[in-house]
């Protein structure tokens, strides 16, 4: 998967990418159950109607076939998600490059993972924020500062009041 993503970047099909969601969370926390691998992608032509068509075509030529909304890579469905706002674009731009068993792999960092989870706001996203905080990979003040920069202060205050202010 890491090689495929790097090849997509090298070929210019995506300008950049970074894992996010549960697989990225697991850099910092205990393993969690997930059914797929989520990857944020920066596409060169986001104005195109079907922004993912060229990505799917690249994967198909590389031998990885679409499966529903995802591309099957080995055992994992790979969900390619185009960045959708300044927060996700910044998350990719500031992602970490890690050595994944000898292959470079771009991964969203803990603070941006937490803030993307905050912006999405499902129950499992709230659990992700709490798991990241508990792991010590991000602090409440780091999340608060990032939330302020991305207009999510109220949402953060609401989250903190609900889950952190005991």
């Amino acid at each position, binding site marked *: 998967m890491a090689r495929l993503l790097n090849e997509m970047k090298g070929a210019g099909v995506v300008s950049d990418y970074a894992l996010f969601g*549960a*697989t990225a969370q*697991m*850099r*910092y*926390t*205990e*393993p*969690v*159950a*997930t*059914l797929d691998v989520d990857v944020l992608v920066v596409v060169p032509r986001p104005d195109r109607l079907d922004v993912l068509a060229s990505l799917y075509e690249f994967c198909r030529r590389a031998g990885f076939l679409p499966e529903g909304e995802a591309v099957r890579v080995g*055992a*994992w469905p790979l969900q390619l998600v185009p960045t959708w706002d300044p927060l996700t674009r910044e998350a990719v731009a500031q992602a970490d490059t*890690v050595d*994944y*068993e000898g292959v470079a792999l771009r991964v969203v960092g803990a603070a941006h993972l937490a803030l993307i989870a905050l912006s999405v706001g499902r129950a499992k996203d709230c659990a992700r924020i709490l798991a990241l905080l*508990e*792991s010590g990979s991000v602090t409440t003040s780091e999340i608060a500062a990032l939330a302020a920069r991305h207009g999510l202060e109220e949402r953060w205050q609401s989250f903190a009041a609900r889950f952190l202010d005991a």
Partner: protein
Amino acid sequence: MPEPHERLDRQAAWQRSRRELPWPEKIRLALKLREAALRLRSAKTVPPSPPAGPSGGGSQP
């Protein structure tokens, strides 16, 4: 015998200790979790067996 909450606390502590595993190892564990979850999702519910009548099932004295 330890109290149930002590056992749960120990289990939670053990789970938290899994944080220290290398990331690729955690991804491999997640893959096993995924396979188990998919098997559970596809598992059919076994209908409850009818209660044993006077002449069937159960142990005989």
